[in-house]
């Protein structure tokens, strides 16, 4: 392949993989914020927990990578339920600031706890053979892990899309995001809906955390460092919108990757400039409602 | 003579749904007009459009002949357009007196001052107290608004609108939630207003409407259904039909 096109394809590929990671981890945050208006800054901590569960499952218990991902997601999803029920629920009527502070406090506690048990050194995870190395697609080779990420992402997007647009529950969620009071008045149990959405979102975050290990390494600080990214994906995409999160993940993922490829030092700058530009023009994000 | 407020072909949709359809309305100086209509007719939406809280898709709003369609809500308030909200919009954490002082202070530019103490201008406090007196609220002057029963909070809502010294006053169900023993206070205060102020009042209570209004506009599904004097409206069969199901001239009270 000609040199320029080769670089472009690499950027696109890496950007796509990164976007898939952003989408998987952020979609839960977008839907819960859109549904309940609850600012959950502990979302990154759930992702971090998922990552560490995967590390322990694979390294200590010898479970395979992919099964570990599944187990960790389910576990974190389940664990998130009592948090929502007994803690978050008390703050649904509180101010944004109070929600921000409570969830940041939880994130700090989580980071400290995991630092105590796992230490601050970045962790890695043993990958099965088929995820290592490259996969040859004919015209060129691509790193297998990133290819896996893209395929997994696409699969999840389809599943979520179907669930959101075609099922009863999806319709209820969309209705409640649109107009909560009206949804309640037609008999939708918004509280239960939210617990379900929150659990699925947290589970997906855990999945994202597990997938991130190979991309960025895993430390407890992951919970706040990447939180900023998840927040901007959500803000740019629009609260409560699957489409929005996907579009934002793609735009931001590819922009960021391009920036880092072309200008290694200033890479970080571009993604934030994009955020500012988008929000100034569309304050509610791509698909948010005013 | 230029009307105090004029609304010309005001139109607004929410998505595909038109909520205000080409509404024309005129309030002469000193008008006492009631806006009535079944629930969902778009009465509050119309008020929001007139005050600038909502922007119309088309149409104009004129205050004393000046086109204010493009101005902000705050600018319209400064030019003499005041409103009360259907559900109280008060400064709940502040005392009743502070609520009024804030209103007077914003009106006369006192709040632009960063240097002198808020309590230094005695005239502001006295004026605020005068408004409280009118509505029998002086005893509650130092109580935080959120501690007051809803009915008395409603009186504060009215007081704030009065404190703006408006030329045009839009009242959105002012008596809603006020116990019948006190509702006369509101109506007396409104009745005692300067003859020159133009008042538009949304009300469901027909006793209030017929006592207060010299003219009535009936709004149905966002459009002006008919307008006229109270007698004309009361004898209009179509209006009665549209209102069937609401407690109207049978003397019932709402809320």
């Amino acid at each position: 392949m000609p040199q320029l096109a080769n670089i472009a394809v690499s950027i696109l590929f890496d950007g796509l993989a990164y976007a898939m990671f952003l989408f998987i981890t952020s979609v839960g945050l977008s839907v819960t914020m859109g549904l309940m208006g609850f600012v959950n800054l502990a979302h990154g901590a759930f992702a971090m927990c998922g990552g560490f569960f995967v590390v322990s499952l694979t390294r200590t218990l010898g479970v395979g990578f992919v099964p570990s991902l599944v187990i960790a997601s389910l576990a974190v999803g389940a664990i998130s339920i009592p948090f929502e029920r007994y803690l978050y629920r008390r703050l649904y009527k509180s101010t944004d600031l109070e929600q921000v502070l409570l969830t940041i406090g939880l994130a700090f506690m989580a980071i400290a706890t995991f630092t105590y048990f796992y230490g601050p050194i970045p962790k890695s995870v043993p990958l099965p053979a088929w995820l290592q190395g490259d996969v040859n697609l004919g015209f060129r080779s691509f790193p297998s892990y990133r290819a896996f990420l893209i395929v997994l992402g696409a699969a999840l997007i389809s599943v979520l899309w179907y669930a959101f647009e075609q099922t009863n529950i999806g319709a209820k969620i969309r209705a409640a995001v649109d107009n909560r009071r009206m949804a309640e008045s037609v008999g939708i149990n918004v509280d239960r809906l939210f617990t379900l959405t929150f659990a699925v979102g947290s589970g997906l975050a855990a999945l994202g955390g597990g997938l991130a290990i190979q991309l960025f390494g895993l430390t407890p600080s992951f919970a706040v460092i990447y939180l900023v990214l998840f927040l901007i994906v959500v803000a740019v995409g629009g609260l409560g919108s699957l489409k929005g999160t996907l579009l934002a993940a793609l735009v931001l993922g590819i922009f960021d990757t391009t920036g880092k490829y072309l200008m290694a030092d200033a890479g970080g700058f571009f993604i934030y400039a994009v955020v500012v530009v988008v929000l100034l023009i569309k304050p509610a994000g791509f698909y948010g409602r005013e | 003579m230029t009307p105090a407020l004029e609304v010309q072909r005001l139109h607004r949709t929410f998505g595909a749904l038109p909520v205000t359809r080409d509404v024309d309305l005129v309030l002469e100086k000193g008008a006492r007009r009631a806006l009535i209509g079944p629930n969902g007719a778009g009465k509050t939406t119309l008020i929001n459009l007139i005050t600038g809280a909502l922007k119309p898709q088309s149409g104009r709003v004129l205050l004393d002949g000046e086109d204010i369609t493009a101005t902000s809500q705050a600018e319209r308030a400064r030019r003499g357009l005041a409103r009360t909200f259907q559900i109280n919009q008060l400064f709940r954490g502040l005392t009743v007196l502070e609520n009024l002082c804030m209103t007077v202070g914003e009106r006369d530019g006192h709040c632009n001052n960063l240097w002198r103490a808020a309590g230094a201008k005695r005239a502001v406090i006295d004026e605020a107290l005068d408004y409280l007196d009118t509505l029998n609220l002086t005893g509650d002057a130092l109580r935080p608004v959120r501690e007051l029963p809803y009915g008395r909070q409603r009186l504060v809502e009215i007081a704030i609108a009065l404190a703006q010294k408006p030329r045009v006053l839009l009242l959105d169900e002012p008596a809603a939630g006020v116990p019948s023993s006190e509702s006369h206070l509101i109506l007396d205060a409104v009745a005692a207003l300067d003859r020159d102020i133009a008042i538009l009042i949304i009300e469901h209570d027909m006793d209030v409407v017929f006592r207060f209004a010299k003219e009535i506009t009936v709004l149905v599904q966002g459009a002006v259904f008919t307008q006229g004097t109270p007698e004309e409206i009361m004898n209009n069969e179509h209006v009665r039909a549209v209102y069937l199901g609401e407690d109207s001239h049978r003397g019932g009270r709402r809320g």
Partner: protein
Amino acid sequence: MAASETRTAAGQAARDRAAEFLVRRHRFRWPEALPWLIAIAAFFVFSDRMTFGSQVLIGVMFALSLDLILGYAGIVTLGHAAFFGIGAYVVGLSAARFGWSEPISGVVAAAVVAGLAGFASGWFLLLYRGLTLLMLTLATAIMLQEAGNLRSDISGGYDGLPGLTFQPLFGVFDYDLYGHTYYLYVLAVLAVIFYFVRRIVYSPFGQALTGIRENVQRMHAIGSPVHRRLVTVYTIAAAIAGIAGALFTQTNAYVTLTVFDFDNSAKVMVMLILGGTGRLYGAFVGATVYMVLEDYFSKLSPTFWQFGIGLLLVLAVLFARRGLLGLLEQADAGWRRRSKP
């Protein structure tokens, strides 16, 4: 109004009582002298910890500036550290690159530049609220940091601008090894700033800010120029944060890009919540308590400190929403109730 003629003596008395309350509200009450007495006492009692003492005072100043926008106007921002950083770098760069090392003019310059930055960014950003504003302020602060990193040849990057020296104050008082002079210097600046902030808070403008915080829709409806008010207070707060940053560079004789860290924006918010927002002195209580605890615990174990702060936040939100001062007020009210016959 005809009411004045028909007012009874009791009615007039009630009026006067109400008016008196408002008229007296801004007067100094003796407990207000406490923080200053404590600060002066600390100078003698903890005379070997004065470098730390200066940092505490700077923290108080930073928290005070945030209280203006967060506690009084109700604007939630995640990028306040940007103005601190701008102030810090105005002093740092003018000393390192232009050889300008007169401290007081440095502080003034920092205030002006930070204030201008506040005005320019506030004008646009304050058109937004909620999550959008949070993200915009966060993004702007990070961009500033990244820009500094881009030109680390100018800014010194994360390694910082080293070896800054400053002229003696007024040409006479020099920096001493124990930071005594600088403690008093920072205290004096804090006192001046506090005087202005206090005046603003008790002014009609300050009242309007509270109105904006309590019910912005109502403010629009009574004709308040909300955006103008917000930009004004944001500019002032930015300038004060800039002064805090300037003093930071002067007292540390050092500055790095970490001053722009999100961590700092978060830290100052925690300080304010701890002390109590919208209470003027919440900044004093919160910043002091936070920094003393941090100094002690993070030396003991950073992990333990992080856990503790997280726990403190959670408990504060659940049980002490109005911070330590709020708890004090509750206790005071409860004591008054119980001591009534």
